[in-house]
């Protein structure tokens, strides 16, 4: 199975990269841009052949290393 973990800073946690990008977009004339947030995507293959097992494994990885739940949220997608 293929896993895709998307990680973002929690709403309310200052995302200075997002703010800088937003300011740059405004500078380019994209005046209507609001709420830019920067996240990261981590993809990997799993030996698990069932979706539930793969998701559980990806969740354990996210909780122990991939995301810091003090400041971040994560979202897992599993595909064959």
């Amino acid at each position: 199975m293929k896993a895709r973990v998307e990680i973002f800073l929690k709403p309310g946690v200052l995302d200075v990269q997002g703010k800088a990008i937003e300011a740059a977009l405004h500078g380019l004339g994209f005046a209507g841009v609001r709420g830019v947030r920067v996240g990261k995507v981590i993809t990997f293959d799993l030996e698990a052949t069932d979706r539930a097992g793969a998701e559980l494994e990806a969740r354990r990885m996210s909780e122990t290393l991939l995301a810091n739940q003090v400041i971040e949220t994560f979202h897992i997608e599993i595909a064959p």
Partner: protein
Amino acid sequence: MKAAVVVFPGSNCDRDCKVAVERSTGATCELVWHAETDLPAGLDLIILPGGFAHGDYLRCGAMAALSPIMAAVKGAADRGVAVLGICNGFQVLCEAGLLPGALLRNAGLKYVCKPVALTIVNPQSRFTRAYANQDEAIMTIGNGEGNYFAPDPVLDRLEGEGQVVFRYKSNPNGSARDIAGIVNGQGNVMGLMPHPDRAFEPELGSADGALLFRSIALAA
């Protein structure tokens, strides 16, 4: 006093810390590689030094917090041994769950490297008692992700329990409530963004960092 500095791949203040502790207190100080599973016996102080452990990949301190040596560091912390995480070491302690909160990217987005004035908020702590009547200290910061963050209830608890030990007089990085250094509830684990190891002799611009190491030696 007997001290040890943990060396992670990418640590760059490990030797500075060893020299700073030895010259400030007369302690002996060993360097311990992160892949070790045991610490030397009879330690009074364990330092997690500044630098860029594992290249700061994923998040600062995230991989270092899972190093083999960290189980021994946690065990020693539980037994009351003093643990001091400086800069990257502070990030490692937060990632390892030995201290609450996390260090975010600096609010101004820039890496900030300069001497800063600190207020000693808790002069009774195990890390500040040698400052006597001195209520300010000058130390150098050098960080891109030194912006301390914790949820408000956690910040309230830290302040209420005297766990905020150092504050910036002029906030350089957006750190919550001007926090520069905190201790855990037991008072033996400190995370500190400024570098006492870069301010332990007058020739370095400040010798105030030496008093932090001497404070730990007083208790040892």
